[in-house]
């Protein structure tokens, strides 16, 4: 059986975390390929639905990347995102989707190194945690 490779869906703000991922790329800082990045115009644009859908479709983790407080290009989208994440975490936890699977991190455009660290850390932690109960493709799970 092959080693479990977690699938992480990343919702990255165009102005910071997405640019940081770009920077990591151009600086040849490699980060785990476990993350599939979706570019958003702001972390405040991440509708809770997107996160729910990602988990229901078997994502092992969801990472939202936004600008540091004070740096959001739309002034406070990131602060709204933080409240939504807190709210949604409570709901997901009720149904066995551990908060260790759902991260919000502030990663500025210049922080390519931090992006690599965060993605690596999340990947490692999810490997230790094992597949999401909703991941129907993880090794050892039968299709149902």
């Amino acid at each position, binding site marked *: 059986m092959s080693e479990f490779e977690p699938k992480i869906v990343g919702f990255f703000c165009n102005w910071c975390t997405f640019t940081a991922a770009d920077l990591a790329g151009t600086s040849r800082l490699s980060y785990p390929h476990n993350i599939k990045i979706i570019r958003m115009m702001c972390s405040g644009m991440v509708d809770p639905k997107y996160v729910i859908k990602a988990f229901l479709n078997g994502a092992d983790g969801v990472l939202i990347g936004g600008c540091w407080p004070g740096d959001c290009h739309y002034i406070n989208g990131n*602060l709204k995102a*933080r409240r939504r994440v807190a709210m949604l975490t*409570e709901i997901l936890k009720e149904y066995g989707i551990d908060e260790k699977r759902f991260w919000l991190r502030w990663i500025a455009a210049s922080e390519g190194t931090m992006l690599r660290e965060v993605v690596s850390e999340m990947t490692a932690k999810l490997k230790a945690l094992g597949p999401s109960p909703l991941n129907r493709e993880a090794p050892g799970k039968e299709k149902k």
Partner: protein
Amino acid sequence: MANFIKLSFKKGELNQKLADIFKGMMEKGVVNALLAPMKQPKRGVMLTLVTDPFHLEAIDPFAPVAPVNGAKVVSSITAKPSGRKMAVVLRSCEIRALIELCKLKQANLEDVLLIGIDCLGRYENLDFVKLQAAGESSESFIVKALAGNTENSGCDVSGACKICEFPVADNVDLRLCIIGTGTDALYIESLTPKGDQALEAVGLKTGDTPGNREAAVQQLVKKRKEACDAAFAQYRASTHSIDALEDKLANCINCYNCRVACPVCYCKECVFVTDTFRHNGDQYMGWADTFGTLKMPTDTIFYHLTRMSHMSLFCVGCGQCTSACPNSIDLMPIFRTAAQKTQQRFNYQAGRSHDEKQPLTVFENDELVEVTGQVK
């Protein structure tokens, strides 16, 4: 505080007494209209908007039924104000939902004299009609329910009511009290200057105090709280995974009645009935291809979790979702347990106060640091 008026009544005369008071209020111009539960010409009791006092005879505020959550009715009358003064008689779950709708600017209490009743529970709509046909009255219900017995000819009040910690309505101008008042008297309590004025206008002077009320209310609240804790614990023990939730919702047909009935499902147009969720055939085929099978209609769990993420902060536990489901899915515990967690997270309680801001409408620079765990 002696802000009460005692209103003794003979058996069978409670509604007449109340009709007289409201008649007075309308005649004296305290209000131009009354929205209250009224007996309907055919059967049942529904919220009814009365502008001619002649029709007040049919009033029945303590009827143990709530075919819809009245917050939505008040919303439809007041969201675009009529400019006319209206007294509104509702139970606690309706008032708490109404407060949330006010915050969402979907209702307006400026011209409203808000009157809350003590609520001992409601029967499901059809059960109530059955009991009514069998000759049961609101008074006979009150007497039995106060003695702790709500079961009647195989019917009982809704599960939501049995675990409701709010038998008494807060944030009202006037309260119609029946808990701890003795079974031959109703007490009207005034809580605001608006309430005082309304009573004065019809020649009622406060000054009485129902001796047993406070203790009786506390005791009932305690009983309900314990029942609630037990019900939540039982629900959580049996439903702690998406798999278990799927089991609970296995008969759901995506009719969305639960959100139509929910007083705090506030979106004007639910996203689940928009083009976002109308797909082409090849899209469905594609999804089916992924695992070789696709349950139709799709997105059932997705819908319920999304609904939670929208309304759980405002859920008042009225149980209308459960009552509305054509497939007898007990939705109330599903939404109430999620609501308990999300409301606790923000130290928020739906309907507690007009002044508490809805959690997703405000935000601070330095709060909830634990979410990211990062400090600059």
